[in-house]
Protein backbone atom coordinates (compact mmCIF):
# COMPACT_ATOMS: atom_id res chain seq x y z
CA UNK A 1 0.00 0.00 0.00
CA UNK A 2 2.76 2.46 0.95
CA UNK A 3 4.64 1.59 -2.23
CA UNK A 4 1.55 2.43 -4.30
CA UNK A 5 1.22 5.73 -2.43
CA UNK A 6 4.83 6.63 -3.29
CA UNK A 7 4.28 5.53 -6.88
CA UNK A 8 1.22 7.80 -7.09
CA UNK A 9 3.25 10.79 -5.84
CA UNK A 10 6.04 10.27 -8.37
CA UNK A 11 3.75 9.40 -11.27
CA UNK A 12 1.58 12.43 -10.49
CA UNK A 13 4.67 14.64 -10.56
CA UNK A 14 5.71 13.00 -13.83
CA UNK A 15 2.26 13.82 -15.27
CA UNK A 16 2.74 17.46 -14.25
CA UNK A 17 6.16 17.37 -15.96
CA UNK A 18 4.56 15.97 -19.13
CA UNK A 19 1.96 18.75 -18.87
CA UNK A 20 4.71 21.41 -18.82
CA UNK A 21 6.62 19.73 -21.65
CA UNK A 22 3.60 19.47 -23.95
CA UNK A 23 2.61 23.09 -23.29
CA UNK A 24 6.17 24.17 -24.11
CA UNK A 25 6.27 22.17 -27.35
CA UNK A 26 2.90 23.63 -28.45
CA UNK A 27 4.35 27.09 -27.82
CA UNK A 28 7.51 26.10 -29.76
CA UNK A 29 9.76 26.19 -26.70
CA UNK A 30 12.05 23.31 -25.76
CA UNK A 31 10.53 23.17 -22.30
CA UNK A 32 11.87 21.41 -19.20
CA UNK A 33 12.49 17.65 -19.10
CA UNK A 34 9.40 15.64 -18.16
CA UNK A 35 10.90 14.70 -14.80
CA UNK A 36 11.40 18.38 -13.89
CA UNK A 37 8.64 18.39 -11.24
CA UNK A 38 10.27 15.42 -9.49
CA UNK A 39 13.61 17.28 -9.53
CA UNK A 40 11.79 20.38 -8.23
CA UNK A 41 10.42 18.42 -5.30
CA UNK A 42 13.89 17.13 -4.35
CA UNK A 43 15.52 20.51 -4.99
CA UNK A 44 13.09 22.32 -2.70
CA UNK A 45 13.50 19.72 0.02
CA UNK A 46 17.27 20.41 0.15
CA UNK A 47 16.91 24.20 0.30
CA UNK A 48 17.44 26.25 3.41
CA UNK A 49 14.04 26.71 5.01
CA UNK A 50 12.54 28.96 7.63
CA UNK A 51 9.23 30.56 8.59
CA UNK A 52 8.71 34.26 7.74
CA UNK A 53 8.57 36.64 10.72
CA UNK A 54 5.05 37.78 9.83
CA UNK A 55 3.67 34.26 9.45
CA UNK A 56 1.35 32.45 11.80
CA UNK A 57 3.81 29.65 12.57
CA UNK A 58 1.33 26.93 13.48
CA UNK A 59 -0.93 27.50 10.48
CA UNK A 60 2.05 28.01 8.15
CA UNK A 61 3.34 24.50 8.85
CA UNK A 62 0.01 22.79 9.55
CA UNK A 63 -1.48 23.58 6.13
CA UNK A 64 1.36 21.69 4.44
CA UNK A 65 0.73 18.64 6.62
CA UNK A 66 -3.02 18.89 6.04
CA UNK A 67 -2.55 19.31 2.27
CA UNK A 68 -0.57 16.08 2.00
CA UNK A 69 -2.81 14.32 4.54
CA UNK A 70 -6.13 15.04 2.79
CA UNK A 71 -4.89 13.85 -0.61
CA UNK A 72 -3.36 10.74 0.96
CA UNK A 73 -6.82 10.08 2.43
CA UNK A 74 -8.45 10.78 -0.95
CA UNK A 75 -6.06 8.32 -2.60
CA UNK A 76 -7.05 5.55 -0.18
CA UNK A 77 -10.77 6.35 -0.51
CA UNK A 78 -10.62 6.03 -4.32
CA UNK A 79 -8.62 2.80 -4.03
CA UNK A 80 -11.21 1.38 -1.63
CA UNK A 81 -14.05 2.38 -4.00
CA UNK A 82 -15.47 4.74 -1.37
CA UNK A 83 -18.01 7.51 -1.75
CA UNK A 84 -17.63 10.12 -4.47
CA UNK A 85 -19.05 12.69 -2.05
CA UNK A 86 -16.05 12.26 0.28
CA UNK A 87 -13.69 12.85 -2.65
CA UNK A 88 -15.58 16.01 -3.55
CA UNK A 89 -15.57 17.03 0.11
CA UNK A 90 -11.78 16.75 -0.02
CA UNK A 91 -11.83 18.97 -3.13
CA UNK A 92 -13.56 21.60 -1.03
CA UNK A 93 -11.15 21.06 1.87
CA UNK A 94 -8.31 21.68 -0.55
CA UNK A 95 -9.76 25.13 -1.25
CA UNK A 96 -9.70 25.88 2.47
CA UNK A 97 -6.12 24.62 2.62
CA UNK A 98 -5.13 26.92 -0.27
CA UNK A 99 -6.79 29.76 1.61
CA UNK A 100 -4.81 28.80 4.71
CA UNK A 101 -1.58 28.72 2.70
CA UNK A 102 -2.17 32.28 1.54
CA UNK A 103 -3.34 33.79 4.81
CA UNK A 104 -0.78 32.10 7.06
CA UNK A 105 2.24 33.74 5.45
CA UNK A 106 1.49 37.41 6.09
CA UNK A 107 2.49 38.19 2.51
CA UNK A 108 0.11 40.35 0.43
CA UNK A 109 0.68 38.08 -2.59
CA UNK A 110 -0.15 35.02 -0.55
CA UNK A 111 -3.28 36.71 0.79
CA UNK A 112 -4.49 37.62 -2.71
CA UNK A 113 -3.83 34.04 -3.80
CA UNK A 114 -5.79 32.78 -0.79
CA UNK A 115 -8.73 35.04 -1.57
CA UNK A 116 -8.70 33.97 -5.21
CA UNK A 117 -8.75 30.33 -4.17
CA UNK A 118 -12.09 31.03 -2.48
CA UNK A 119 -13.38 32.79 -5.60
CA UNK A 120 -12.28 29.84 -7.73
CA UNK A 121 -14.47 27.56 -5.62
CA UNK A 122 -16.99 28.33 -8.40
CA UNK A 123 -15.17 25.62 -10.35
CA UNK A 124 -16.47 23.11 -7.81
CA UNK A 125 -20.15 23.75 -8.58
CA UNK A 126 -20.24 21.76 -11.88
CA UNK A 127 -18.88 18.92 -9.78
CA UNK A 128 -22.01 18.71 -7.66
CA UNK A 129 -24.22 18.80 -10.75
CA UNK A 130 -22.09 15.97 -12.17
CA UNK A 131 -22.69 13.99 -9.00
CA UNK A 132 -26.44 14.49 -9.37
CA UNK A 133 -26.36 13.22 -12.96
CA UNK A 134 -24.24 10.19 -12.05
CA UNK A 135 -26.63 9.33 -9.21
CA UNK A 136 -29.59 9.46 -11.61
CA UNK A 137 -28.13 6.51 -13.48
CA UNK A 138 -26.14 4.52 -10.95
CA UNK A 139 -28.43 5.11 -7.92
CA UNK A 140 -25.30 5.22 -5.80
CA UNK A 141 -22.40 7.52 -4.99
CA UNK A 142 -20.02 4.72 -4.14
CA UNK A 143 -17.17 4.45 -6.67
CA UNK A 144 -17.30 0.65 -6.46
CA UNK A 145 -21.04 0.72 -7.33
CA UNK A 146 -20.39 3.12 -10.21
CA UNK A 147 -17.71 0.75 -11.56
CA UNK A 148 -20.13 -2.19 -11.20
CA UNK A 149 -22.82 -0.21 -13.09
CA UNK A 150 -20.41 0.43 -15.95
CA UNK A 151 -19.51 -3.25 -16.22
CA UNK A 152 -23.17 -3.90 -17.08
CA UNK A 153 -24.21 -0.73 -18.92
CA UNK A 154 -20.96 0.46 -20.51
CA UNK A 155 -18.78 3.48 -19.72
CA UNK A 156 -20.62 6.51 -18.32
CA UNK A 157 -18.66 8.73 -20.71
CA UNK A 158 -20.83 7.32 -23.51
CA UNK A 159 -24.06 7.45 -21.48
CA UNK A 160 -23.69 11.01 -20.13
CA UNK A 161 -20.88 12.65 -22.17
CA UNK A 162 -21.73 16.21 -21.09
CA UNK A 163 -21.27 15.26 -17.45
CA UNK A 164 -17.83 13.88 -18.31
CA UNK A 165 -17.07 17.19 -20.03
CA UNK A 166 -18.11 19.09 -16.88
CA UNK A 167 -15.85 16.91 -14.75
CA UNK A 168 -13.09 17.43 -17.30
CA UNK A 169 -13.54 21.20 -16.90
CA UNK A 170 -13.12 20.77 -13.16
CA UNK A 171 -9.79 19.01 -13.79
CA UNK A 172 -8.81 21.82 -16.20
CA UNK A 173 -9.44 24.30 -13.39
CA UNK A 174 -7.04 22.31 -11.16
CA UNK A 175 -4.20 22.14 -13.67
CA UNK A 176 -1.38 24.69 -13.56
CA UNK A 177 -1.10 27.20 -16.44
CA UNK A 178 -4.77 26.72 -17.31
CA UNK A 179 -7.45 29.29 -18.17
CA UNK A 180 -8.85 29.09 -14.63
CA UNK A 181 -5.51 29.07 -12.75
CA UNK A 182 -6.22 32.44 -11.19
CA UNK A 183 -4.72 31.42 -7.84
CA UNK A 184 -1.27 31.10 -9.43
CA UNK A 185 -1.49 34.09 -11.74
CA UNK A 186 1.87 35.77 -12.38
CA UNK A 187 0.76 39.16 -11.06
CA UNK A 188 0.58 37.44 -7.66
CA UNK A 189 4.17 36.04 -7.98
CA UNK A 190 3.28 32.45 -7.03
CA UNK A 191 -0.13 33.19 -5.50
CA UNK A 192 -1.01 31.42 -2.27
CA UNK A 193 2.31 29.53 -2.21
CA UNK A 194 4.57 32.58 -2.61
CA UNK A 195 6.05 32.31 0.89
CA UNK A 196 6.04 28.51 1.17
CA UNK A 197 9.51 27.75 -0.11
CA UNK A 198 12.12 25.09 0.62
CA UNK A 199 10.84 22.07 2.52
CA UNK A 200 7.30 23.53 2.70
CA UNK A 201 7.21 23.83 -1.11
CA UNK A 202 8.56 20.30 -1.46
CA UNK A 203 5.60 19.15 0.65
CA UNK A 204 3.27 21.15 -1.58
CA UNK A 205 4.81 19.55 -4.68
CA UNK A 206 4.10 16.11 -3.19
CA UNK A 207 0.53 17.19 -2.52
CA UNK A 208 0.19 18.40 -6.14
CA UNK A 209 1.54 15.13 -7.54
CA UNK A 210 -0.85 13.10 -5.42
CA UNK A 211 -3.76 15.41 -6.23
CA UNK A 212 -3.17 15.07 -9.98
CA UNK A 213 -3.00 11.28 -9.74
CA UNK A 214 -6.17 11.08 -7.61
CA UNK A 215 -8.17 13.42 -9.84
CA UNK A 216 -7.28 11.54 -13.02
CA UNK A 217 -7.82 8.13 -11.40
CA UNK A 218 -11.25 9.26 -10.16
CA UNK A 219 -12.17 10.55 -13.64
CA UNK A 220 -11.16 7.25 -15.29
CA UNK A 221 -12.92 5.05 -12.70
CA UNK A 222 -16.12 7.10 -12.74
CA UNK A 223 -16.47 7.65 -16.49
CA UNK A 224 -14.60 4.74 -18.10
CA UNK A 225 -14.67 2.11 -15.38
CA UNK A 226 -12.19 -0.40 -14.03
CA UNK A 227 -9.35 -0.86 -16.52
CA UNK A 228 -6.03 -2.73 -16.26
CA UNK A 229 -3.37 -0.83 -14.34
CA UNK A 230 -1.16 -0.21 -17.40
CA UNK A 231 -4.15 1.09 -19.35
CA UNK A 232 -5.05 3.45 -16.52
CA UNK A 233 -1.56 4.95 -16.65
CA UNK A 234 -1.75 5.31 -20.46
CA UNK A 235 -5.18 6.96 -20.17
CA UNK A 236 -3.84 9.35 -17.51
CA UNK A 237 -1.04 10.42 -19.86
CA UNK A 238 -3.49 10.87 -22.74
CA UNK A 239 -5.86 12.96 -20.62
CA UNK A 240 -2.95 15.10 -19.43
CA UNK A 241 -1.87 15.70 -23.04
CA UNK A 242 -5.38 16.90 -23.92
CA UNK A 243 -5.38 19.10 -20.80
CA UNK A 244 -2.05 20.54 -21.91
CA UNK A 245 -3.55 21.50 -25.27
CA UNK A 246 -6.42 23.27 -23.50
CA UNK A 247 -4.00 25.08 -21.16
CA UNK A 248 -1.57 26.02 -23.93
CA UNK A 249 -4.22 27.36 -26.32
CA UNK A 250 -6.49 29.21 -23.86
CA UNK A 251 -5.36 32.44 -22.23
CA UNK A 252 -5.66 32.76 -18.46
CA UNK A 253 -8.96 34.43 -17.67
CA UNK A 254 -9.37 37.28 -15.24
CA UNK A 255 -10.90 36.22 -11.89
CA UNK A 256 -14.28 37.71 -12.87
CA UNK A 257 -14.33 35.98 -16.27
CA UNK A 258 -13.15 32.72 -14.73
CA UNK A 259 -16.09 32.67 -12.32
CA UNK A 260 -18.52 33.76 -15.07
CA UNK A 261 -17.44 30.95 -17.43
CA UNK A 262 -17.62 28.36 -14.65
CA UNK A 263 -21.06 29.59 -13.61
CA UNK A 264 -22.24 29.32 -17.23
CA UNK A 265 -20.94 25.74 -17.36
CA UNK A 266 -22.91 25.04 -14.18
CA UNK A 267 -26.06 26.55 -15.69
CA UNK A 268 -25.73 24.38 -18.81
CA UNK A 269 -25.15 21.34 -16.61
CA UNK A 270 -28.23 22.05 -14.48
CA UNK A 271 -30.41 22.25 -17.62
CA UNK A 272 -28.81 19.04 -18.94
CA UNK A 273 -29.39 17.15 -15.69
CA UNK A 274 -32.96 18.45 -15.45
CA UNK A 275 -33.55 17.19 -18.98
CA UNK A 276 -32.05 13.80 -18.10
CA UNK A 277 -34.24 13.59 -14.99
CA UNK A 278 -37.35 14.46 -17.04
CA UNK A 279 -36.52 11.90 -19.75
CA UNK A 280 -35.79 9.13 -17.24
Amino acid at each position, binding site marked *: *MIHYLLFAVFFGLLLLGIHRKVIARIQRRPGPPVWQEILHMFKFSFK*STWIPQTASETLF*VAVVLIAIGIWTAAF*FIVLAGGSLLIIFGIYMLHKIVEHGFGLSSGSPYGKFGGVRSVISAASEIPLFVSVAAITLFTKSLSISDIIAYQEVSGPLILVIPLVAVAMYMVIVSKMPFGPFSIVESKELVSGYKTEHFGVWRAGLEICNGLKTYVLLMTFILVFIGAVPFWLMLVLMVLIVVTLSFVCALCPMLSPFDSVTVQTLITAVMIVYVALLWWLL
Partner: protein
Amino acid sequence: MMLLSGFAGIAATALWALNLMPLLYYEGLLVVAFPLFVLSTGLWWMARQRDADIPFLGY
Protein backbone atom coordinates in the same frame (compact mmCIF):
# COMPACT_ATOMS: atom_id res chain seq x y z
CA MET B 1 9.80 12.99 14.32
CA MET B 2 11.25 11.53 11.12
CA LEU B 3 12.28 8.33 12.87
CA LEU B 4 9.00 8.11 14.77
CA SER B 5 6.77 8.62 11.72
CA GLY B 6 8.98 6.41 9.53
CA PHE B 7 8.96 3.62 12.10
CA ALA B 8 5.19 3.96 12.54
CA GLY B 9 4.69 3.61 8.78
CA ILE B 10 6.99 0.60 8.47
CA ALA B 11 5.56 -1.10 11.56
CA ALA B 12 1.98 -0.53 10.33
CA THR B 13 2.90 -1.94 6.91
CA ALA B 14 4.37 -5.06 8.54
CA LEU B 15 1.36 -5.49 10.85
CA TRP B 16 -1.06 -5.07 7.94
CA ALA B 17 0.91 -7.56 5.80
CA LEU B 18 0.70 -10.08 8.66
CA ASN B 19 -3.05 -9.48 8.99
CA LEU B 20 -2.56 -8.11 12.50
CA MET B 21 -3.89 -4.66 11.66
CA PRO B 22 -7.14 -3.82 9.80
CA LEU B 23 -6.72 -1.99 6.49
CA LEU B 24 -8.69 1.01 7.74
CA TYR B 25 -6.36 1.56 10.72
CA TYR B 26 -3.33 1.08 8.48
CA GLU B 27 -4.56 3.69 6.01
CA GLY B 28 -5.54 6.08 8.82
CA LEU B 29 -2.07 5.80 10.29
CA LEU B 30 -0.46 6.48 6.90
CA VAL B 31 -2.64 9.59 6.43
CA VAL B 32 -1.05 11.00 9.61
CA ALA B 33 2.46 9.52 9.37
CA PHE B 34 3.17 10.17 5.67
CA PRO B 35 2.95 14.02 5.80
CA LEU B 36 4.94 14.07 9.05
CA PHE B 37 7.63 11.85 7.53
CA VAL B 38 7.87 13.97 4.37
CA LEU B 39 8.28 17.28 6.20
CA SER B 40 10.53 15.99 8.98
CA THR B 41 12.82 14.28 6.44
CA GLY B 42 13.07 17.54 4.49
CA LEU B 43 13.78 19.55 7.64
CA TRP B 44 16.46 17.03 8.60
CA TRP B 45 18.41 16.98 5.31
CA MET B 46 17.83 20.58 4.19
CA ALA B 47 20.65 23.08 3.88
CA ARG B 48 21.78 25.07 6.93
CA GLN B 49 18.99 27.03 8.57
CA ARG B 50 19.05 30.82 8.61
CA ASP B 51 17.25 33.54 10.52
CA ALA B 52 13.67 34.42 9.65
CA ASP B 53 13.22 36.91 6.82
CA ILE B 54 10.51 39.43 5.95
CA PRO B 55 7.96 38.33 3.33
CA PHE B 56 8.64 39.00 -0.36
CA LEU B 57 7.21 42.45 -1.16
CA GLY B 58 8.17 42.78 -4.84
CA TYR B 59 11.21 43.67 -6.88
